[in-house]
């Protein structure tokens, strides 16, 4: 997993390596400083000349300044490296997601992808910064401080032989116990927050049923449950601090006692200056151990984020462009031959079963059926948004799997049921259909989709800005703009998946009328709820439970198909419809 992540460092290898170099330099200087300070103290003790003193002092200050610049520079390079790494990671994820097929997209929810690209990436960014900075610094510092302590203190340094293992063991024990406890708590905590969100969203229901007290009680229980778990976890971690202190205290007492014995003993191996340096190094060693335990915890925490990012990066797109793809489409005919389809490999129910259907180029086809009858599924196979599970699907006489995907999708324009406009001007949105469309072409498409009549009434006309999600146009207007956008592709097949549900019937009829006159060669497939939207189609398909139960013209179906008759009568009941 780490290898995959390292690949995303790329051009930020240089600042990463520079960071490590600066940190190493900083550590070396920092370790030397107490060493020289010990000399300085001894010099003072010996009553040396002030000018000599200043010389040593100046050296120390220069060293401190060097350490300052190294540390400061490392601050800059590590920020560049980690921010750059995060940038590349986001870029790689975004690129990868663009190669996803619908099946891949269904697997990850859009909100989870957003979290992975934002929160998770910033967690990994933090971890990377820690890695090149503190994870380099702490062990080095530890090592050097130990070496220096042994050089200066000799036998005194033996204190570390006792203290270090105790501390490391203690930290590991705490981390081992705390981590699973925290993981459990955070999971519960997330759940609690989810239930608050649910509560806020459903406030009308809660108040409507006067369930405020019930909700309070429910929440109180959940909150208290978390308190208990959280306290347990926090208390384990709270042991770190006393553990650290006890080691520091032991170290101090030991060095003082044994140190003074050594100085005053028969053969003094150290002096007072060295004793004071030992105290400094002792502190440093213990601090670094604490740092290391912190890094350990942080890295394990971020490993969850890494896992989630890596899931996005390793996901294999389900649809691939064939080798030697077909790049031209003969016409807009569609042939389903024994098509079966299920959404997930593991699903036990077929969404489509044994579909056989032939649509001539230029035909207008209507599809009717209840919720869950798989009408949308049928049409989604045509632009190869999903691949058939068995059987074959031909468009223009060629199997859809043999086409270059973008050629296929450019020729099969689909207006999705859950359609979206993007933030930007109306023009920009329309040009999604054809980037090089002239203004005249845009207006022409809008006229055909009956969108021009309201767009031209906007003060800014085609330059009107659409808010994110298209919230500033009405549902019917949005649908008409989406149809115009699809028309700009000049497709051979146009699919409308319940795309005029919010458009009034008169406009709906006018749009269909326009299709008949202006794009007669285009195959039009229309899914609708309203019978009126498909009544005059060349062929109407009735679907139920993933299968075609009947097909024919309005008159034929009215004659022989019960379901069709039922829908028709239900929708036209009252009889005085003069549509």
């Amino acid at each position: 997993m780490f290898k995959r992540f390292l690949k995303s460092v790329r051009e930020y290898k240089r600042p990463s390596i520079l960071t490590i170099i600066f940190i190493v330099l900083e550590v070396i200087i920092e370790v030397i400083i107490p060493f020289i300070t010990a000399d300085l103290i001894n010099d003072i003790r010996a009553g040396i000349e002030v000018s000599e003193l200043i010389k040593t002092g100046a050296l120390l200050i220069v060293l401190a300044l060097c350490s300052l610049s190294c540390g400061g520079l490392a601050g800059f390079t590590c920020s560049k490296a980690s921010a750059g790494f995060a940038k590349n990671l986001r870029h790689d994820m975004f690129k990868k997601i663009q190669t996803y097929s619908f099946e891949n997209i269904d697997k990850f929810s859009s909100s989870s992808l957003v979290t992975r690209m934002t929160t998770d990436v910033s967690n990994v960014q933090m971890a990377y910064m820690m890695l090149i900075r503190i994870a380099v610094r702490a062990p080095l510092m530890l090592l050097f401080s130990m070496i220096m302590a042994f050089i200066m203190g000799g036998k005194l340094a033996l204190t570390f032989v006792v203290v270090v293992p105790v501390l490391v063991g203690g930290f590991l024990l705490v981390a081992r116990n705390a981590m699973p406890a925290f993981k459990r708590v955070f999971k519960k905590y997330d759940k609690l927050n989810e239930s608050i969100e649910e509560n806020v969203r459903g406030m009308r229901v809660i108040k409507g049923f006067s369930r405020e007290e019930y909700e309070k009680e429910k929440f109180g229980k959940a909150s208290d449950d978390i308190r208990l778990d959280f306290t347990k976890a926090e208390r384990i971690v709270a042991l770190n601090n006393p553990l650290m202190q006890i080691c520091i205290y032991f170290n101090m007492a030991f060095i003082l006692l044994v140190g003074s014995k050594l100085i005053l003993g028969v053969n003094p191996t150290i002096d007072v200056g060295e004793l004071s340096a030992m105290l400094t190094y002792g502190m440093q060693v213990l601090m670094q151990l604490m740092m290391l335990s912190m890094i350990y915890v942080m890295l394990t925490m971020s490993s969850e984020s890494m896992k989630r990012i890596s899931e996005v990066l390793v996901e294999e797109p389900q649809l691939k462009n064939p080798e030697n793809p077909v790049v031209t489409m003969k016409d807009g005919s569609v042939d389903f031959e024994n098509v079966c389809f299920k959404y997930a490999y593991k699903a036990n129910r077929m969404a489509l079963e044994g579909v056989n259907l032939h649509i001539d180029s230029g035909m207008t086809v209507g599809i009717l059926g209840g919720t869950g009858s798989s009408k949308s599924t049928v049409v989604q196979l045509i632009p190869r948004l999903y691949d058939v599970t068995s059987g074959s699907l031909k468009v223009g006489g060629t199997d859809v799997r043999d086409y270059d995907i973008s050629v296929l999708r450019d020729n099969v324009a689909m207006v999705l049921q859950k359609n979206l406009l993007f933030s930007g001007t109306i023009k920009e949105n329309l040009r999604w259909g054809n980037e090089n469309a002239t203004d005249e072409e845009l207006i022409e498409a809008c006229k055909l989709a009956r969108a021009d009549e309201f767009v031209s009434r906007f003060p800014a006309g085609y330059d009107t800005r659409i808010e994110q999600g298209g919230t500033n146009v009405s549902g019917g207007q949005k649908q008409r703009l989406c149809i115009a956008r699809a028309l700009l592709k000049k497709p051979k097949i146009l699919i409308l998946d319940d795309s005029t549900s919010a458009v009034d019937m008169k406009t709906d009829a006018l749009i269909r009328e326009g299709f008949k006159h202006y794009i007669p060669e285009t195959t039009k497939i229309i899914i609708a709820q309203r019978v009126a939207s498909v009544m005059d189609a060349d062929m109407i398909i009735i679907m139920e439970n993933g299968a075609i139960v009947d097909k024919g013209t309005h008159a034929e179906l009215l004659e022989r198909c019960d379901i069709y008759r039922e829908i028709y009568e239900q929708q036209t009941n009252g009889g005085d419809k003069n549509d």
Partner: protein
Amino acid sequence: MTDKKNVSSPNMKMKKGSRPPLDMKVLGRIVKMLFKSYPVLIPLTAFCIIFSAIVSSIPAIFIQKVTAIIEEFADGKLPGENLWPEASKQIVPLVLILVGLYALAMVFLTLYTQLMAYITQGFLCKMREKMFDGMQDLPISYFDTHKHGDIMSYYTNDIDTLRQLISQSLPHLLQSAVIVTTVLCLMLWYSIWMTLIVLCGVFAMFFVSKKIGGGSAKYFIKLQSSIAREEGYVQEMMTGQKVVKVFCREEEVSRGFDEINEALFEEAYRANAYANSLGPIIMNIGNVLYVICAIATGIFLTSRVKNLSISGLAFSIDILIPFLNMTKQFTGNVNQLSQQINSIVMAMAGAKRIFDLMDEKPEEDNGYVTLVNCKTDDNGNICETEEHTNMWAWKHPHGDGTLTYTRLCGDVRLLDVDFGYTPDKQVLHNVSVYAEPGQKVAFVGATGAGKTTITNLINRFYDIEDGKISYDGININKIRKSDLRRSLGIVLQDTNLFTGTVMDNIRYGKLDATDEECKAAARLAGADDFISRLPLGYDTLLTNNGTNLSQGQRQLIAIARAAVADPPVMILDEATSSIDTRTEAIVQRGMDKLMEGRTVFVIAHRLSTVMNSDVIMVLDHGRIIERGNHEKLIAEKGTYYQLYTGAFELE
């Protein structure tokens, strides 16, 4: 996930380089609440912190003493001579006292850290519950005017900062403050001159950190907006991913992302660079200060300057060593102190938002008419009973002390009602509606015509400005809100289901309903059919507002939920909008049965849903422009007629 865009980071609040003043009122309130919640534990914890802090600054004294003794002995020491046996008589007791103090400090430290874990979580739990309980009592207008993402961030981000504040910042602040004071006293004890030098160094540190911190704050503000921009883009593209694919726009979209991504990198780099370099710079200023102190001591020693100190000690090497150690401790803790104050200032912003939510005015309810179970006595009079009679009455206490009971029938009248959500924009004008018990009243009209507003007024989610609404002849302002709402069943267009089984969700309408009652309600609503086809039937777990169900299926469950409550009045606000017409036709039979004997208000833009109503009200811009049954309205050839024939667009 909560809406991160709405979460303003503490950094946003920082003006260019300057720190906002510490909000003492909020801090005071937190401290007061802490004391109130734990009147014994808080002082005990504070005592533990202070004691362990003092003890941890004392070693300097002992080090000074020990070195002084060593000095004394070493001065006259000859090579090969062993002075330890003699010196140890003085040194060992000192070290033993030190160890004793350490042991005590350890006890207090352990006690305080454990107590702190307990207090923090207990306090947070209390705050959470207070917030939540307060929130349940807020009027619906609060939820209509506040973004849900913002409300959520009180519970996530702001509670988290509070946790940081209580478990880390406050104890550390106290600890550092105690250490700084003790060390300062000790330093003054040893040497005033030297202390002055140290103080000068500390000021230099403050200066630098303010300079750099300011630069960092500037970039952090920019970073926030870059992050928001990137999140917005990702959000939009991830939701629209399928549209991107259908239009083969992958390349263009990636290019757009890269641009935003690059800008984000620039800001993140700069903001972090300043923040990251601050630490080493401050630390090394500490180092320089250390050296300066050492040199100064040397100068003082050799030039025989007279020491000025509280203790009256002369400059000597025994002062120098502990003093230098104290320098490190002092600068380290001063730095800590300023960092803690910084994080406390930031936490105050979060705490203030939490208090704002708690202080929000709860929904007012001056209703005194209550809903009670009743039965008729031998004389045919209504009297109150504890039994479940399925017969309800309004219990109406009067000013003169008498009680009257009015049978609950579901007669709802609106008389000349005016209303606006904000004073400057009136939504309803002179609306009058008479719904007799058992009638079906429908509202038809464009979005924004005021249909939903009328239902909001009947259940008093909002209160009317002018006019009168009566329920069984009682002004609804006199009815206790919870009882009023209990008598009304509402099914809304945006169905909200809760995490739990299908059965739990239906039972939400009547908490003590048996499984059989719930199933009967589901059958009535026409939901039984699909529920029994779910893998686990009624025990199927619904999560995340029932994402595993279609919108139509969710609506059916919501209808069943209202049905189990068996209210005399029902409000169906686009309750069947997502059920396809064919299924609706099937559901309709059940719905008709469900509506039997109830007063029902129906809002629908699909006219087939409202056609069989007793009265249809056509609303336009808050006024009722047509009223009558289907046949009458068709005959009038007005707006309803145009809608029916499809000449008008409803959305």
